[in-house]
């Protein structure tokens, strides 16, 4: 009790002049509220961005460019009265929602509140600065990917024919995913697509790692898929910063299947749009592109079918034309052949008769010559024989018994046989002597 009493006494008696904390904070507030801290443009990076009750809360930080160490940090607020207008303007200019990780140039007024302490109230923002920073950062990433030789890898992958089995990296229940699926399966061509959702966080700081993990799950069964679609609902909720990530870009660039990116952004692009095999603006457009590609395959088949039909009917009609030509030709040719044959026969006939008659004439000439010769030969022969006969006749006439008898000779016969020896004549025989003229019969007296 006593000490307590002493303390009280001591405090009352020896305490220096003090002011209340409220007084102190009001002094600070007064000091802070200076023209040098009012409506100043500052550059900083946004962290811990959040919207509550229409007001927008964040930390503005300044980091060492080399080490990443935080050099300065200040709470900042955008009041609900200005946030929608500022956000729309920023979004329209950058294609990017205000979000953690962005570098911004903002007009702030530093304010000190007795309870909440020091903070900056943001009244304006320069989107050009953020744009420049995003582009700068993206360009650095692109350069790094190029230096590593992986920048073009996904883009140079051929799209398989057909591209029908699509592994989808998206968020479950996301509007963009629904649009994609609807567009893919309600295609009027009834293309046979197969899809499976490989879930990933598509926004915020966790997005890149989550998407890389989803890509890893697809890569583990890459044989099952033709391509990958990275899709995310678009519109005002877009958040490009989380996709402008080197790790993610590197995985997409080196992914073994072609990747189509439709992350719902109309105005600007992310690094993924540079490295992916195909970029479109929205999930719907991604589905349309895939449908169009498969549809082109169908068209190609239809074209082949048409050309096949034409080739077959050309071949058939060509051959049947050829056949009917031959058909028409056969009677003509046959008639021609028989005419020619007839003509030939006639020719042969003519020439044959000519030849034949020539020969006959020649033969006839020969024959007649021969008959003359024969006649001549015959007459010669006849004449010769006649001459010979004449000679013989003359000789005969000379040698004939009559001629001998006329020369005085006579023939003596006994009983009809001529007598050439006296010994053949017995006594008493009757001799008949023939003279040239007449006969004498005598009887032998003595032999």
């Amino acid at each position, binding site marked *: 009790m006593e000490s307590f009493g002493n303390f009280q006494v001591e405090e009352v008696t020896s305490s220096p002049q003090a002011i209340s904390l409220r007084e102190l904070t009001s002094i600070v507030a007064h000091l802070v509220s200076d023209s040098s801290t009012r409506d100043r443009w500052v550059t900083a990076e946004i962290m811990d961005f959040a919207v509550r009750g229409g007001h927008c809360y964040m930390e503005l930080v300044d980091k060492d460019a080399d080490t990443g160490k935080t050099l300065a940090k200040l709470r900042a607020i955008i009041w609900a009265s200005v946030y929608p207008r500022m956000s729309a303007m920023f979004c329209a200019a950058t294609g990017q929602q205000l979000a953690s990780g962005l570098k911004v140039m903002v007009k702030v007024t530093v304010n000190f509140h007795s309870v909440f302490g020091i903070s900056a109230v943001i009244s304006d923002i320069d989107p050009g600065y953020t744009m420049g920073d995003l582009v700068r950062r993206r360009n650095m990433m692109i350069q790094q990917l190029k230096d590593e030789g992986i920048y073009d890898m996904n883009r140079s992958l051929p799209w398989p024919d057909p591209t029908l089995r699509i592994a989808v990296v998206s968020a479950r229940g996301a509007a963009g995913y629904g649009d994609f699926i609807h567009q893919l399966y309600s295609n009027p061509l009834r293309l046979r697509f197969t899809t499976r959702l490989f879930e990933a966080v598509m926004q915020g700081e966790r997005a890149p790692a989550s998407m890389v993990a989803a890509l890893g799950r697809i890569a583990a069964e890459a044989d099952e898929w033709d391509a990958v679609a990275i899709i995310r609902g678009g519109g005002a909720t877009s958040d490009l910063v989380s996709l402008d990530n080197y790790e993610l870009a590197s995985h997409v660039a080196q992914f073994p299947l072609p990747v189509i990116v439709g992350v719902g952004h109309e105005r600007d692009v992310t690094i993924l749009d540079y490295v992916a095999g195909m970029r479109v603006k929205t999930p719907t457009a991604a589905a349309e592109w895939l449908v169009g590609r498969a549809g082109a395959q169908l068209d190609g088949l239809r074209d082949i079918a048409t050309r096949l039909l034409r*080739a077959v009917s050309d071949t058939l009609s060509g051959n049947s034309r050829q056949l009917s030509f031959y058909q028409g030709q056969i009677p003509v040719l046959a008639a021609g052949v028989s005419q020619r044959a007839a003509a030939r026969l006639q020719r042969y006939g003519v020439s044959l008769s000519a030849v034949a008659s020539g020969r006959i004439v020649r033969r006839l000439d020969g024959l007649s010559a021969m008959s003359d010769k024969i006649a001549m030969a015959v007459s010669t022969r006849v004449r010769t024989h006649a001459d010979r006969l004449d000679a013989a006749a003359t000789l005969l006439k000379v040698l004939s018994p009559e001629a001998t008898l006329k020369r005085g000779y006579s023939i003596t016969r006994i009983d009809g046989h001529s007598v050439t020896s006296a010994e053949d004549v017995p006594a008493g025989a009757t001799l008949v002597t023939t003279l040239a003229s007449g006969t004498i019969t005598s009887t032998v007296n003595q032999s």
Partner: protein
Amino acid sequence: MDTAKTPVDKLTYTQALTELETILRTLQSDSCDVDRLTELTRRAAALLSHCRSRLTATDKELREILDSLEATPQAGE
């Protein structure tokens, strides 16, 4: 690779397409043998039908696919 002897349903889409184009070239060439016309046309028709069926789904299949897609999120949530 010559796939003319391979059954159609054993071919990949690309193989079938390549063979189709080969047949087409044969049919369009002057040296197409009429004796082979029927055989080639039949093969081409089978290849075309194979490729088409790879590309397109029947109504029943489409319904099944859509049903399974609608069922998945509900089961997960």
